[in-house]
């Protein structure tokens, strides 16, 4: 007996519709805070999408992904501080420096597996953290205020909150589509095969190292874009954005939403950040709930929310 709808698709469609219509609602209700919150969610969802590419599809447990948020953010911040506010300069620099950093880390950690890979990526991200914390000129530990958002040509105005939200949303959907195409291309098949069984990939004739490296660079670059957006959103950048525990937050989003699924990272970002907001209204100590919740997800719901929805659909169908 086939159901009239598929729960998983329904949830996805509703979510996308809600995201598209959100500014209408906040405009009408006057709830500006909600727009700010969801801009942040969308930006971090982009970061989660980039992490999902290497973690979900590629099986590469990078615990240093938040470093790119910092690199992208500081590219904008440092250039702005030095008087260069043009987005046409800042954003390419953000992307290029993220790509370069990813290239170096990826090359050095490429042969490592398992816990060693986790440790190397984590350590390099910490290195970046200390690097930026040591730059007195750019605020060091205290961070750097950005007085002017990235400038593009009129009519693009990033300080217009609604416009900025839609730009972020467009970039998010664009990134999701890009990742979708990459993952299903020949390149993506190699990445997925390497995740599934790297030895076999070598045996059938694939030099997987180079493909994983390129994948790593693509993910880092996308996350750098997220960092540039985040810096604009908060008008501020500080080293704390790349502290290793922030990488943990990103991983939680990907796992919670559903690793290796196209909409998982978005669902995870919404779920985590919305949950944060709701729970912190209930109690100041909401992370006490988040900790064990994460544990339970790891133990019993490894497929995340997407996994739960898929199972629910399968049950209804049978």
């Amino acid at each position, binding site marked *: 007996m086939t159901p009239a709808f598929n729960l998983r698709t329904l949830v996805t469609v509703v979510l996308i519709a809600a995201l598209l219509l959100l500014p209408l609602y906040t405009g009408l209700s006057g709830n500006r805070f909600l727009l700010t919150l969801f801009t942040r969610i969308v930006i971090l969802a982009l970061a989660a999408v980039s992490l999902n590419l290497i973690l979900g599809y590629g099986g590469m*447990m990078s*615990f240093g992904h938040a470093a790119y948020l910092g690199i992208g953010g500081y590219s904008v911040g440092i250039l702005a501080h030095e008087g260069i506010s043009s987005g046409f300069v800042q954003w390419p620099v953000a992307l290029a420096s993220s790509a370069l950093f990813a290239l170096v880390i990826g090359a*050095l950690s490429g*042969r*490592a597996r*398992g*816990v*060693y890979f*986790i*440790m*190397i990526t*984590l*350590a*390099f991200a*910490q*290195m970046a953290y*200390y*690097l930026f*914390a*040591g*730059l*007195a*000129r750019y605020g*060091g*530990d205290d961070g750097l205020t950005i007085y002017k958002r990235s400038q593009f040509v009129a009519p693009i105005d990033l300080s217009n909150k609604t416009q900025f939200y839609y730009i972020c949303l467009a970039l998010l959907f664009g990134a999701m589509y890009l990742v979708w195409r990459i993952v299903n291309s020949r390149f993506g098949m190699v990445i997925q095969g390497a995740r599934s069984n790297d030895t076999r990939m070598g045996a059938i004739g694939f030099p997987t190292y180079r493909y994983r490296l390129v994948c790593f660079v693509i993910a880092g670059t996308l996350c750098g874009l997220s960092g540039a957006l985040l810096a604009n959103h908060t008008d501020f950048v500080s080293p704390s954005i790349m*502290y*290793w*525990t922030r990488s*943990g937050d990103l*991983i*939680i989003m990907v*796992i919670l939403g559903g690793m290796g699924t196209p909409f998982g990272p978005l669902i995870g970002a919404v779920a985590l950040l919305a949950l944060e907001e709701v729970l912190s209204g209930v109690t100041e*100590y*909401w*992370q*006490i709930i*988040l*900790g*064990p*919740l*994460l*544990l339970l*997800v*790891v*133990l019993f719901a*490894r497929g995340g929310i997407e996994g739960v929805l898929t199972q629910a659909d399968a049950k209804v169908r049978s």
Partner: protein
Amino acid sequence: MNLFIEQCLNGLQFGLMLFLLAAGLTLVLGIMDMVNLAHGSLYMIGAYFAATFAAWTGSFVVGVVLALGATLLVGMAVEVVVMRRLYGRDHLDHVLATFGLILFFDETVRLIWGPAGLSLPLPAWLSQPVQILPGVNYSAYRLAMIVVTLMVAAFLYVLVMRTRIGMLIRAGASNREMVGALGVNIKLLYTLVFGLGAALAGLAGLMQAPILTVQIGMGENIVILAFVITVIGGIGSIRGALVAALFVGFIDTLGRSYFPDVLRMMFSKDVASTAAPALSSMLIYLLMAIVLVAKPEGLFSAGNR
């Protein structure tokens, strides 16, 4: 010259403290193949327990002993409740689950003790300087720390090299399945090893409490360093952890002392004072990168698993 000796001793003391932390980590990682990010939380809990018990009982030593016992218990409880369900799973599962534990412990500590942090004052007999060489004074407490840690290191050596349990630990570090096949009560062994690691972490935490800090998040800062040391030294190797920890301790301490002067010669005071600690931290990660590229299993790896 006095300053240099003092800094060297500080480096030794810091390195030994890091060794305590890394030793527990490398044992757990080596024997149980368990990536425990929450190791730093046990370090934090040891410090908090010590500060609290010392304040309650009015005695530093009693507080320390009670704190050690309490941290051991917490460690064993964590093993039984959480870790047991994670054995044999993907390392990513370990990372995520123990990350969740970090969040839980941080918030629980904040709930019980508040966000402000604590202090652990030293008793009079430990806060005086001691003359170790003619004309050279050194803090009695730091000296005590060095002595205690060396004793613990010696104890660990005897435990691992000369006792039956130690033999099981060494065997388990190089071949887990065999140890299980030999009919050893693996569950109990694991609980004990994890408890030992927790106690070591707690000891490290409470020892540095009077001189550094007792606050939420102190675990996150130091646990990465402990992992770096574990990786450099070789997973499962206590000897490797000692060598790597001492190395890192010296580099970090001497770097923080002398880098500012070196940099001040080239840059402004402002830049130098912010850049120096950053540089010495970065140096450690650079060291790890070099070791991993040159010898991926670490300097003293315990053999194939």
